């Protein structure tokens, strides 16, 4: 099976995530689309790890360790980001990002 299949799948998932970030106004949905993009990159990295292992290299596990660290960073990011969203909801009683334009003028 060509490794391009996995590249195409990752590209499609990544672009769906970008479309979600650009189209939606709900801060939580935008945050979930960021998670989707992170997962597209992780999938690509695991596919390349398999390709590297098939080529006979012994250090193919490094890519999977990198994916593991990306998961760690994503979990930390979600904790802080959701705290910020909750604080924003307390201040404005909405999660609409268009209300956050106080730096505009």
């Amino acid at each position, binding site marked *: *099976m*060509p*490794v*391009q*299949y*996995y590249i195409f*799948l990752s*590209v*499609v*998932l990544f*672009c*769906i995530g*970008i*479309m*979600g*970030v*650009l*189209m*939606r*106004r*709900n801060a*939580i949905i935008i*945050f*979930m*689309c960021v998670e*989707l993009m992170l*997962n597209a990159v*992780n*999938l690509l990295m*695991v*596919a390349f*790890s*398999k*390709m590297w*292992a*098939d*080529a006979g290299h012994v250090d*193919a*596990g*490094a890519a*999977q*360790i990198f*994916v*593991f*660290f990306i*998961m*760690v960073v*994503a*979990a*930390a990011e*979600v*904790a*802080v980001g*959701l*705290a*910020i969203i*909750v604080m924003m909801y307390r201040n404005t009683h909405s*999660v*609409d990002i*268009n209300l956050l334009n106080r730096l505009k003028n």
Partner: protein
Amino acid sequence: MGIQQILFLVLAVISVITALGVVLSKSPVSSVLCLILTFFTIAGHYILLNAQFLAVVHIIVYAGAIMVLFLFVIMFMNLNTEGEPHKRNWLKYAGAISGGALLVVLVAAIHDTTMPNLQAVPTDVGLIENLGKILFSTYVAPFEISSILFLSAMVGAVVVGKK
């Protein structure tokens, strides 16, 4: 067409459809449920790619922790009843067109490349024994630093949430 390719196609179709469901669904709760399904199909892809440890960690971390946090926040704020405020339509089209343009550019750049095929034979790279040896020998310093990152994120979340 081998069994691996059929499984890949089924999982890929489900993951793309549920990813579209995340973006297009009206209520945030169904978005979260679609995203959980997407994560499960991605875990299936990991198993197909012989990354068994990552598949299990992916399910535990994402479906077990992160999405529960999302659901908790959504239900806590009671966002499901009110609809999203109306957005100007041309802005939505502009977002969709720019995302689609990026998709076209990336696919056009990739589809002429030649890359080796993935073999159907399993590799033991993704087993927990090998990954643990790598993680605790070569990458032990980033591992310890990531624990500090977690601690600071936890403190930051509490500080931001208490205000």
